[in-house]
């Protein structure tokens, strides 16, 4: 059974959240808690790297939306990087590709180029 591993990196004042595995209903609390911790620490410029995330459902998407709103309230941003094909289709189906800025790489997300 696939679980969710979360690692955090910092680059140029930006917090990079790397998701690896499955953000399913038994794991989504881990993602929600991590994003809430970052908000409490006033880390409001966040890049979520989805390149190793193979599953997410509406509960996980809800956690990302909540964090996105928190970042914006603090004049920050939360953007997404390199979703796998199935997750990219999910973002398109929900039209959340219109809400989140989605980049091909962390480097591009940091510079804000080539969305």
């Amino acid at each position, binding site marked *: 059974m696939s679980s969710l591993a979360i690692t955090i990196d910092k680059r140029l004042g930006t917090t990079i959240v790397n998701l690896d595995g499955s953000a*399913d*209903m038994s794991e989504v609390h881990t993602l929600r808690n991590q994003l809430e911790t970052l908000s409490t620490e006033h880390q409001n410029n966040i890049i979520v790297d989805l390149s190793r995330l193979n*599953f997410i459902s509406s509960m996980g998407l809800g956690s990302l939306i909540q964090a996105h709103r928190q970042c914006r309230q603090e004049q920050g941003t939360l953007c997404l990087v390199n979703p796998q094909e199935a997750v990219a289709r999910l973002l398109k189906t929900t039209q959340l590709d219109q809400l989140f800025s989605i980049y091909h790489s962390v480097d591009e997300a940091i510079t804000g180029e080539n969305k």
Partner: protein
Amino acid sequence: MPSDTYQEIEISSSFSQARQAEQTIVTAAENHGYVESDLFALQLSLEEALSNAIRHGNRQDSQKIINIRYHVSQERIDIYVADEGTGFDPTNVPDPTADENLENPHGRGIMLMRAYMNLVEYNQEGNVVHIVKLNPKSTKSSCKNHE
């Protein structure tokens, strides 16, 4: 009601138990030759049906159960998820893709099931959902009720 060709799983209102049931059904589909995109659709829709049953139907009351009946064949997958809640009107759910709802962290479950499955239907009370996934590789697939 489903015939005795259906398998049955009963769980409490627990996300970890729901996840195990979900994996059992996804594995059965994998063993019947469904491809990766179908398995993603199945897992997603099961996750939405089960999390709705836990959170909205049973209101996370661990004393309440969720009954899952499923049948997997090479042609189609039928799943019934029943909770102990009072039900709801599935036609009265806001469109989560509307501009004014896009930032709402909730309310995408039914839309996703409809997007990824071939059939999503509720009983009159709204506390049992029946979802169907046809195998696009099968020539015998049909959405006609399989009972």
